């Protein structure tokens, strides 16, 4: 055997040993938990044969608590670059089979390295989290590692899309990396996220709760809003990641890829979806599907704050971010959670040059002590801020109700919408006819012989005068009153004329959004 082939065979031996991770029994345990090993996950997510791994031979640095002399394959994390549907991405995947995927200093340094690559190369970063947390034996070095990751997450925010995939536990400080990224993917029964676990909660506070109810995938998708995409299996989760990447650009200075335009499906008849009676609910997603190419709509945070719908679709082949009130849930009101949800999504679209189409049909802000005390003022302000701040093309279609503060917040002309269209059903006013008539004609109603008849008459009077789009149209607050069937055409045109949109804003270090 020549020296060269001996050297090559040594490399192969080393590689083989390293890619075994925590060894057969640990891998068997991982599979028994319904989870895939780290490299298998990467292989399933990326284009076949496209993955190139780095830092395979890294060694950990811990010298205390009996750690010296121990070999942790790759220090519990796999990093590399590859492609998904031909698009370059950078990825890291924590390997639970190696010391529980615990984060030591070299583990963190590997993650930091691939994050630096992603930022420098301007390609999306995908992080697969499956880790028991900090490696206690490495003490403050482990904390330093987390800090380095969080800093890079913040640095890369708004420059490259960052996706966090929670495929196992992600506990303690570790949760803050996903929280700083743009999209969090969770899988039922597999993902667990919390700051303190059930055991600590039980012994300190006496509250008993299991991991799933505390921080399972469903909890983060339905209650906390930490997760953006919920899947029933790892395979479904990978499909979601691939779909998302088709809609978004690789960096803030690249454009989302346009594809060949297609027409919406014929079964979505836009003029038949919205009931004329403003008290009748409907699914606003059907309106979106009646507008988008092939009626495709990729919803973000589908299970949380359902009273507002956000997500991606295409019009004329190009990616558009949709924000729509959902009359089917909580009558489509704005509240704390829906404001947070929409504001975050708008900021993502703005950062990555994705035009925003707003479909409006909402009765206003949700009244109630719990909302006021939960800080609906502070949360609602985020929505105003996000819309005002956004400089991408912003188009609003008022489908039906646009009342009060909600009218202003939902990308009105006054927050610098580029185009505002309204359907003939639209009611744009400071409040609903019933409430308004009761205030304006209070005296007349009280003094009338038959106050109830007078009230009805005044409500009708008000409805006729103000509950329509023409008062706002007369002021130029809306650009056109359109037939619902013309919606897609108007949007197509508005998007295409906004292509070279330029907005100059006062220079500043950064704004101060009401976090």
């Amino acid at each position, binding site marked *: 055997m020549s020296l060269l082939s001996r050297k090559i065979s040594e490399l192969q031996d080393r590689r083989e040993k390293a890619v075994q991770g*925590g*060894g057969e029994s*640990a891998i068997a*345990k991982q599979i028994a*938990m319904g989870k895939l090993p780290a490299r298998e996950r990467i292989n399933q997510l990326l284009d076949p044969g496209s993955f190139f791994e780095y830092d395979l031979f890294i060694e950990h640095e811990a010298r205390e608590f009996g*750690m010296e002399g*121990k*070999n*942790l394959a790759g220090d519990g994390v796999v990093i590399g670059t590859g492609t998904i549907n031909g698009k370059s991405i950078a990825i890291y995947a924590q390997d*639970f089979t*190696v*010391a*529980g995927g*615990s984060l030591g200093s070299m583990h963190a340094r590997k993650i930091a390295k691939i994050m630096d690559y992603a930022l420098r190369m301007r390609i999306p970063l995908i992080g697969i989290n499956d880790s*028991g*947390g900090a*490696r*206690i034996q490495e003490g403050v070095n482990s904390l330093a590692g987390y800090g380095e990751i969080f800093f890079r997450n913040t640095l890369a925010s708004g420059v490259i899309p960052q996706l966090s995939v929670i495929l*196992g*536990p992600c*506990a303690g400080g570790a949760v803050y990396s996903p929280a700083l990224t743009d999209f969090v993917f969770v899988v039922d*029964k597999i993902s*667990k996220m919390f700051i303190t*676990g059930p*055991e*600590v909660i039980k*012994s*300190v506070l006496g*509250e008993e*709760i*299991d*991991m*799933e*109810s505390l921080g*399972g995938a469903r909890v983060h998708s339905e209650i906390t809003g930490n997760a953006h995409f919920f899947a029933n299996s790892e395979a479904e989760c990978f499909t979601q990641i691939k779909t998302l990447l088709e809609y978004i650009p690789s960096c803030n200075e690249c454009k989302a890829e346009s594809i060949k335009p297609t027409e919406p499906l014929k079964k979505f008849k836009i003029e038949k979806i919205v009931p004329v009676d*403003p*008290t*009748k*609910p409907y699914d606003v997603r059907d309106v979106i599907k009646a507008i988008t190419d092939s009626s495709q709509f990729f919803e973000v945070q589908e299970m949380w704050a359902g009273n507002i719908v956000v997500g991606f679709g295409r019009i004329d082949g190009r990616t558009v971010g949709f924000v729509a009130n959902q*009359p089917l849930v*909580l*009558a*489509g*009101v704005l509240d704390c959670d829906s404001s947070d949800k929409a504001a975050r999504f708008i900021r993502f679209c703005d950062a990555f040059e994705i035009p925003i189409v707003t479909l409006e049909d909402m*009765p*206003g802000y*949700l*009244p*109630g002590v*719990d909302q006021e005390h939960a800080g609906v003022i502070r949360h609602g302000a985020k929505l105003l801020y996000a819309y005002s701040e956004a400089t991408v093309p912003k188009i609003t279609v008022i489908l039906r109700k646009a009342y009060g503060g909600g009218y202003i917040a939902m990308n009105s002309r006054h927050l610098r919408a580029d185009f505002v269209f309204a359907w003939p059903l639209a009611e744009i006013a400071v409040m*609903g006819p*019933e409430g308004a008539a009761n205030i304006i004609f209070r005296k007349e109603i009280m003094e009338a012989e038959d106050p109830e008849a007078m009230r009805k008459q005044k409500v009708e009077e008000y409805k006729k005068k103000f509950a329509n789009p023409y008062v706002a149209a007369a002021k130029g607050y809306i650009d056109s009153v359109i037939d619902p069937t013309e919606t897609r055409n108007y949007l197509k045109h508005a998007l295409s004329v906004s292509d070279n949109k330029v907005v100059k804003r006062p220079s500043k270090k950064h704004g101060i959004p009401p976090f």
Partner: protein
Amino acid sequence: MKKTKKITEEKDVMETLQIFPNARRYKTNLTKKYKNRKQWKRPDLQEIHSMIPGVVTSFSVELGSHVNKGDEIMIYEAMKMQNIIRAPFDGTIEKIFVKPGEKVPKGVVMIYLKSDVEFVYEDVDVDLSAIVPDPVV
């Protein structure tokens, strides 16, 4: 003019807070929000609550009727919308706590829908002892 005296005594009574089991206890003031926190209780999914304050318009079912997932149970007017409440799973209407025309605050149990299949709460715990590295030869 009536003079009011600020009550400062309350501030001096510090309480203790422990944030890790079997570890240090801290003397500190607790926030109002912390003191008023509610103990977590596993929600009974068979209770159908009012999601916002509103008025019961009508029922599409009767006591004892069987419904399938997605069936309309009742119309609940809130925020000037005739909201349709649908069955979240297959079951039988076991109890109705409200009547048409009734004003209902948020979070009130309106209907008890007995599920056809019993809910099982799976506790999928993770063995975190794996963090301690196995001795590798």
